């Protein structure tokens, strides 16, 4: 709970909250602009191109120019669209993306068990817009709401391609949310709190959840997050070659810009979530002699944005490198690999955690659990195989894809 809001709430507290909201909003907007430019420049470099270089120095104002252009474009509304939902959808996509950032701690001293409290105009507070008890659940909830934006956009357009794109989107996002949630659960196991501030505070002194959860949930989270963001290689939602523009095919003008903005905003906020969950947010080495302003604001901000930049780079790198998944491959990866793996890993971590808490040998306990999980996995696998074989025997014409094997695949 933010100490600012624990006692009597005076005018100063309200003003500080307002200030934080405005600053967060502005920084995020500018950050998205920078992100669009960064992505285009970086991917151009990776593809031996030059990239935007006309608007402003190094083309840094390119996003602004694009935004202005979109604002002056004609705002089309398809005849068969559902007008209210059609207009609502872009905001459903954009607003959750903004809201997620509210729970991200961006600065504050987290070294040596400090809880990140900073003093602002004589009031103690956290360097995040809000620190609700349900912190990370809020992030998951908002990313679920964002699915509605995409889905309703596709549905309300009254057109085929957007509908196909949105059906894909909802299936994909629902699938990957499971493994995303399970890898978050692994983090929560060690932090013991849902509050983002608490999660970051629990990682002080270099005890990043990245190591504590033994890397696997981190990797699963990154893959699932990429799928959640509909970014390449999981951008089937807007696969240009197949679906024109996907769910936003019928959108133009500023409504399209909102989707565009939401997409990049989500990338930034999701990177921030990764940093918060696994890399200790703004925590980092802070020397004792550093003055208050440096240890509370400057250094943590630098740490936070440096870590953020790594993941922004990573997402662009993915895009430059990996070709798009086929739909059945996407579903296979999600349901048959990531979900079992994250579930199994979660069980192993749970046993290790319990062993530490009640004083058993954690290594032995972990090994036993791993063996049991592996055994269970093998049994499940053979059961699936047997069922598939029986199914095949009963009706040879049935597509193998229903119960496994990579051959063919029903997809959209």
């Amino acid at each position, binding site marked *: 709970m933010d100490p600012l809001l624990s006692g009597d709430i005076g005018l100063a507290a309200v003003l500080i909250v307002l200030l934080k909201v405005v600053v967060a909003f502005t920084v995020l907007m500018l950050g998205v602009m920078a992100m669009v430019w960064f992505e285009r420049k970086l991917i151009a*470099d990776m593809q031996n191109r*030059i990239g935007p270089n006309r608007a402003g120095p190094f083309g840094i104002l390119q996003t602004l120019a694009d935004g202005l252009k979109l604002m002056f474009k004609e705002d089309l509304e398809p005849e068969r669209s559902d007008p209210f939902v059609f207009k609502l959808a872009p905001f459903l996509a954009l607003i959750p993306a903004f809201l997620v950032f509210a729970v991200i701690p961006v600065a504050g001293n987290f070294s040596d068990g400090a809880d990140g409290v900073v003093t602002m105009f004589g009031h103690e507070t956290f360097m995040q817009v809000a620190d609700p008890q349900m912190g990370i659940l809020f992030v998951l909830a908002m990313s679920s709401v964002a699915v509605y934006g995409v889905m309703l956009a596709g549905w309300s357009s009254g057109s085929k391609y957007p509908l196909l794109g949105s059906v894909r989107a909802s299936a994909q996002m629902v699938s990957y949310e499971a493994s995303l949630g399970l890898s978050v659960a692994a983090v929560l196991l060690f932090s013991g709190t849902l509050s983002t501030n608490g999660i970051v505070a629990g990682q002080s002194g270099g005890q990043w959840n990245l190591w504590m959860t033994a890397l696997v949930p981190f990797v699963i989270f990154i893959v699932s997050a990429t799928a959640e963001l509909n970014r390449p290689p999981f951008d089937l939602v807007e696969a240009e070659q197949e679906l024109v523009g996907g769910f936003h095919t019928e959108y133009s003008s500023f409504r399209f810009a909102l989707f565009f903005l939401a997409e990049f905003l989500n990338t930034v906020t999701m990177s921030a979530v990764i940093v918060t969950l696994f890399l200790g947010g703004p925590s980092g080495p802070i020397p004792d002699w550093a003055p208050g302003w440096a240890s509370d604001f400057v250094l943590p901000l630098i740490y936070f944005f440096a870590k953020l930049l790594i993941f922004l780079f990573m997402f662009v790198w993915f895009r*430059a*490198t990996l070709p798009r998944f086929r739909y059945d491959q996407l579903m296979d990866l999600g349901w048959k690999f990531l979900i079992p793996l994250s579930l199994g890993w979660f069980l192993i971590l749970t046993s290790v955690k319990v062993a530490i808490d009640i004083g058993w040998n954690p290594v032995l306990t972990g090994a036993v659990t791993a063996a049991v999980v592996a055994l269970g996995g093998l049994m499940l696998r053979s059961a699936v195989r047997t069922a598939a074989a029986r199914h095949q025997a009963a009706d040879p014409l049935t597509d193998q894809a229903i119960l496994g094997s990579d051959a063919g695949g029903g997809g959209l």
Partner: protein
Amino acid sequence: MGYLDGFKVTFKKWAGTRTDSGRRVTMEYPEQVRPKPVRFHGRHVLNRYEDGMEKCIGCELCAGVCPARCIYVRGADNDPEDPTSPGERFGFVYEINYLRCIHCDLCVEACPTEAITETKLFEFAFTNRDDAIYTKDELLVGDDGRPQELPWENWAGGFDPAEDTSGWMRATAPAGDHRFEGVVGWSGELGYGVRDPEGGQPLDAERRAEAARALAHAHDVESHGHDDHDDHDAAGGHH
């Protein structure tokens, strides 16, 4: 590392952006201009003789052969006192619609007087469909034989007559010379852009016969493995 090799490639390209391994293949276009290919076809010009007379005789063969139907010509009789072109008739109206032109160069081949040829100029833009129709005033070359620089055209790359005149190909016999029948050769336009024939297109019968003999000899030496297409190529010889 099989799955991760791709990441290595893109990372190297990024890290080596300013070195040779990641060298940029695109250019800063309007400032830097890529040299145009030899056979590049751009917009047309209507040529004149050195005394200033127009070459066009208004015969409409170009309009007739145009597959895109983008040329409109109307001929008129020359004023005997003040002729526009040598001979009886001249091109009174000459218009090319560049929204339709496919730059196939058939008009150039059809022209009996080499009045219409192409340049390599292609950088022009319009805000109005009517503006896309070039009239005779715009197509005619100036007194120096160079195309006119029109206000909506971008000549940032400069205009070098020797380079930027489209060396067009003669697939038929100009001036009725049988030796050129079926032989592709370059034609100069108003003295500009004259090029040696490309390899594989000997101009005189003797060199051709010599090549044929060499080919026959080569066939004796090696086993028969060539098809007709190869023979044709080899007959030309490569200079």
